[in-house]
């Protein structure tokens, strides 16, 4: 018997289709030959076909001493058949089954955003073991092993490129689909896709330790975290079903009206109400995750939606946090800026100081001559020196120059003052004991800092602040360039914390930061936003929202997603509460009967799910057009704006 039940219920769509056909046949026969026995037979058959699965689930429940909605529906349908109301029985079971099947399909859609990420997870890896290539499950690679990634393949582990060059599409991690160039020493992520070349990657994290796995875990935790309103509704839901079942019994005892009692049983599932909030949250958080925005739970979603103040820690958020050569100032007539840079780069190539890289990069990108240096010497904290093509060259601070006996003229000192006053870090370049030029470096403003800020304004953020440890001058330059009017500069980490608390007195504050020294301010803010691919683990841990892409506009996106989701959630709660009210009054007033009650109930559940699924389409068109323009190459990469 249970075998028959199972085979009938395995394919829910077929069950629904067969019972629909039987109902139609019953209808036709009832109309052609009124009073014929075939009409009730068809409808009872339809009820059995659709009800088999319901009954099976009800029995499974009962075996565990539980009364679920399936039990109520089974009792209602059986009761209806016994009362001779075969039409009601067939309609109730058919509608319940059709609704449940549709709900499953549409709910799958609301979870789709995450399924997409889970599907990105790599399955196998080609590992180099004892000189030969072995294919193993991706999770079984151990860190330190070298894996081979073919063009077009999904990278199976987090790791570092040891050989080869390729492009990767990191959209599964950052939400950005612009390809990223990878060469030896670059970091690659599991789940990203390569094109254009073969890579050898040394694994640093595998399986559930990979960034992708951690993101998925975070998103799921966020989706599972219950919003306060949700807890209330779940409590309500737990009492509602037994209460309605009890009401049905009382109604029968008092009125002897079996029909009324059975109708009450039919509407005993608070379906739409209990799923109204979770479906919106799952869809909203899932949609944000696709755009590289992690919102850590429904509670943070609700707060993010109400943000009216955004405070930025400047470095690494509005700026990239990476130094670039901003000015090369030659100070002697015979020596060109190009020559100054070429000589400085020749010496800096041998240095490992953080400021050395930008000098070398600038010389390369400006096509300066590549010169060889020898006799390299490092003067800790002051600079470097070497012989370049027979000329002795020194690059470093004013102090290095005075130590080497190089004169710094008043003219040069003025240039230095001007550049440092602009917040730049300046290096003096000397050849044969004469200062020949100054190289100044500065942090770079992000391409989308200004558009991001204006989008925040449009999203209803009324106050924007820069809170930074940097000097007033640097901070206000960044502020002007990005369109922010309020600046607090020269702050220590604890000052940032105090500044955030001060802002909280008059508004709901989001603090955006990337580094360890922001952690206290991030934790104190109403919404802490860890920003950028470089966001440290501490920042991402403390934060309520993590933005993985490094796009300032993503902060505005996060607020918009949060608003849309809370709006959606409220609509759902209203729809489902209205439905419960409507059904209860309708049934008690005798206006709504079994089939009608089931129809309204199932429709309300579908409305709620379909409404939530709309969230997945948020901003779709915008994102697409941006990708298209990049593909067409019509947007020239803006020259890096140096501040």
């Amino acid at each position: 018997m249970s075998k028959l039940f199972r085979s009938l219920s395995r394919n829910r769509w077929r069950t629904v289709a067969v019972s629909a056909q039987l109902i139609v046949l019953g209808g036709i026969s009832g109309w052609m030959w009124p009073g014929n026995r075939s009409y009730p037979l068809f409808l009872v058959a339809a009820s059995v076909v659709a009800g088999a699965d319901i009954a099976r689930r009800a029995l499974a429940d009962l075996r565990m001493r539980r009364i679920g909605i399936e039990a109520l529906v089974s009792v209602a349908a059986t009761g209806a058949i016994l009362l001779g109301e075969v039409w009601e029985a067939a309609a109730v079971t058919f509608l319940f089954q059709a609704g449940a099947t549709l709900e499953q399909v549409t709910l799958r859609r609301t979870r789709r955003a995450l399924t997409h990420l889970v599907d990105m997870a790599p399955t196998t890896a080609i590992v180099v073991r004892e000189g030969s290539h072995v294919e193993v499950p991706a999770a079984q690679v151990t860190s330190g092993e070298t894996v081979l990634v073919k063009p077009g393949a999904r990278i199976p582990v987090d790791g570092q490129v040891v050989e080869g060059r390729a492009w990767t599409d990191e959209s599964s991690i950052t939400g950005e689909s612009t390809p990223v160039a990878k060469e030896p020493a670059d970091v690659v992520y599991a789940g990203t896709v390569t094109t254009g070349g073969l890579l050898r990657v040394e694994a640093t994290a595998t399986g559930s330790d990979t960034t992708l796995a951690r993101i998925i875990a975070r998103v799921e935790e966020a989706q599972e975290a219950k919003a306060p309103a949700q807890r209330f509704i779940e409590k309500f839901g737990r009492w509602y079903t037994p209460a309605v079942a009890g009401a049905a019994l009382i109604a029968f005892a008092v009125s002897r009206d079996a029909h009324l009692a059975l109708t009450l049983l039919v509407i005993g599932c608070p379906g739409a109400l209990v799923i109204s909030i979770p479906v919106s949250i799952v869809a909203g958080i899932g949609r944000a995750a696709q755009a590289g925005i992690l919102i850590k739970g429904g509670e943070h979603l609700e707060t993010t939606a109400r943000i009216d103040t955004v405070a930025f820690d400047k470095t690494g958020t509005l700026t990239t946090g990476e130094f670039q050569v901003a000015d090369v100032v030659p100070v002697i007539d015979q020596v060109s800026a190009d020559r100054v840079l070429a000589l400085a780069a020749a010496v800096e190539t041998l240095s490992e100081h953080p400021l050395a890289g930008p000098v070398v990069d600038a010389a390369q990108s400006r096509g300066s001559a590549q010169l060889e240096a020898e006799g390299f010497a490092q003067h800790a904290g002051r600079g470097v020196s070497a012989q370049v093509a027979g000329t002795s060259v020194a690059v470093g601070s004013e102090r290095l120059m005075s130590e080497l006996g190089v004169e710094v003229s008043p003219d040069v000192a003025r240039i230095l003052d001007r550049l440092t006053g602009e917040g730049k870090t300046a290096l003096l370049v000397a050849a044969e004991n004469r200062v020949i030029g100054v190289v100044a470096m500065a942090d770079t403003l992000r391409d989308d800092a200004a558009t991001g800020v204006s989008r925040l304004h449009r999203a209803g953020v009324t106050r924007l602040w820069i809170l930074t440890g940097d000097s007033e001058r640097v901070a206000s330059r960044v502020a002007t360039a990005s369109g922010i009017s309020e600046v607090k500069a020269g702050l220590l980490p604890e000052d940032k914390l105090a500044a955030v608390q001060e802002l909280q007195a008059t508004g709901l504050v989001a603090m955006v930061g990337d580094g360890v020294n922001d952690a206290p301010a991030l934790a104190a803010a109403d919404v802490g936003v860890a920003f950028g691919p470089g966001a440290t683990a501490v920042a991402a841990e403390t934060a309520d929202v993590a933005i993985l892409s490094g796009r300032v506009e993503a902060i505005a996106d996060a607020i918009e997603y949060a608003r849309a989701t809370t709006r959606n959630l409220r609509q759902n709660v209203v729809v489902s509460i209205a439905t419960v009210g409507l059904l209860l009054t309708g049934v008690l007033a005798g206006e709504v009967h079994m089939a009608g009650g089931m129809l309204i109930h199932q429709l309300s559940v579908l409305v709620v799910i379909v409404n939530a699924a709309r969230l997945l389409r948020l901003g779709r068109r915008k994102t697409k057009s941006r990708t298209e323009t990049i593909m067409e190459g019509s947007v020239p990469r803006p020259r890096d704006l140096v501040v």
Partner: protein
Amino acid sequence: MSTITKTVLRSDEFSCPSCVSKIEAKLADLPGVVSAQVHFTTGRIEVEHVADETTVDDLVSAVDQVGYLAVPQAF
């Protein structure tokens, strides 16, 4: 000595939160299952169990008996 394994299953068939407690109770009844947690919103089922007493296949068939198709996942 038996070690406790953590297994994650996923199902995309949950359509009403009432299934959560059902599946949790069913799994908790299995021998060697230390804890079972079902998340309606994400469709994730987390089980801590002694693999010698209850295998991953046992977990899948237990969930199937309650009426849902679940698939084991690496994470």
